[in-house]
């Protein structure tokens, strides 16, 4: 059912909700917290308006052969890869380097299953809740509880399953090599997405063909 709120009428309320806490934090001398609040809101605005969705990017590309969102996410990852490498290289900010192993794949599958069932990744879950889709409060609660449980059993996993050694690519092949390797991996993913996105075969393509 369409609501009564018309376009633009909520703007003063939005400005108040966004601005008041920032001013309050500044007044309390918490400048960093105020900065986080404003940057967080700005990032949230961009994510909501751009309709970015990691879950949708993968699902649309491989289930529906619609590659546009996956292209956007791959461009985003490429830009982030270069940006993060630049920050680490020029500012000397150390990365949080963790070992990759079969547990990474297993965790990815479990997370992906949850993402598919919720219909949204962690990012979109927050966006949808912010839009007023109350059902996503469940997904946010699941994320928080899951994160807490994960932290609680991390030590057990490290001891039992083995953690492996962390590999920091720039140590092995230098910074240019590491960035190129990352971009190359993204290019391979892009090729897979484009290949999948080609029009043609498959039952899904015939659904809207009409006639029969």
């Amino acid at each position, binding site marked *: 059912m369409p609501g009564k709120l018309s376009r633009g009428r909520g703007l003063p309320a939005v400005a108040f909700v966004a601005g008041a806490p920032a001013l309050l934090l500044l007044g309390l001398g918490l400048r960093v917290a105020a900065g986080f609040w404003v940057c967080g809101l700005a990032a949230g605005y961009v994510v909501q308006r751009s309709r970015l969705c990691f879950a949708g990017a993968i699902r649309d590309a491989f289930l529906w052969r619609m590659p546009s969102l996956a292209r956007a996410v791959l461009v985003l990852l490429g830009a982030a890869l270069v940006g993060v490498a630049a920050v680490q290289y020029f500012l000397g900010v150390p990365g949080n380097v963790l070992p990759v192993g079969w547990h990474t794949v297993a965790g990815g599958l479990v997370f992906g299953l949850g993402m598919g069932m919720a219909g949204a990744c962690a990012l979109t879950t927050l966006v949808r809740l912010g839009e007023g889709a109350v059902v996503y409060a469940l997904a946010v609660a699941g994320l928080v509880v899951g994160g807490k449980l994960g932290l609680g059993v991390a030590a057990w996993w490290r001891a039992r399953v083995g953690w492996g050694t962390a590999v920091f690519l720039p140590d092995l092949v230098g910074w240019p090599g590491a960035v190129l390797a990352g971009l190359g991996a993204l290019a391979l993913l892009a090729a897979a997405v484009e290949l999948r996105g080609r029009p043609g075969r498959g039952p899904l*393509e015939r*659904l809207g063909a009409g006639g029969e």
Partner: protein
Amino acid sequence: MRYLDLVDEVCPVPLLRIQEALREVPAGETVVAHLGYARSVRNVMEWAEREGISFTVKDLPGGVWEITLCRKPRGGGSGGA
């Protein structure tokens, strides 16, 4: 005309339900759906565009979109999308 209320549905359910409805209605009939999430709307638009299904989208108040899709007439052309 078939009406679908998909405002509270989670992706990708809106697209699936619309595909299902378009398969069930007779050729030349329209399916009207209300959706509550911009990403779902884009999904349906992109799919319909690719399939050559003609559609219109209306931006209703309160964060609701109304999308009207027309199943192609039997033996008809591209549907004019």
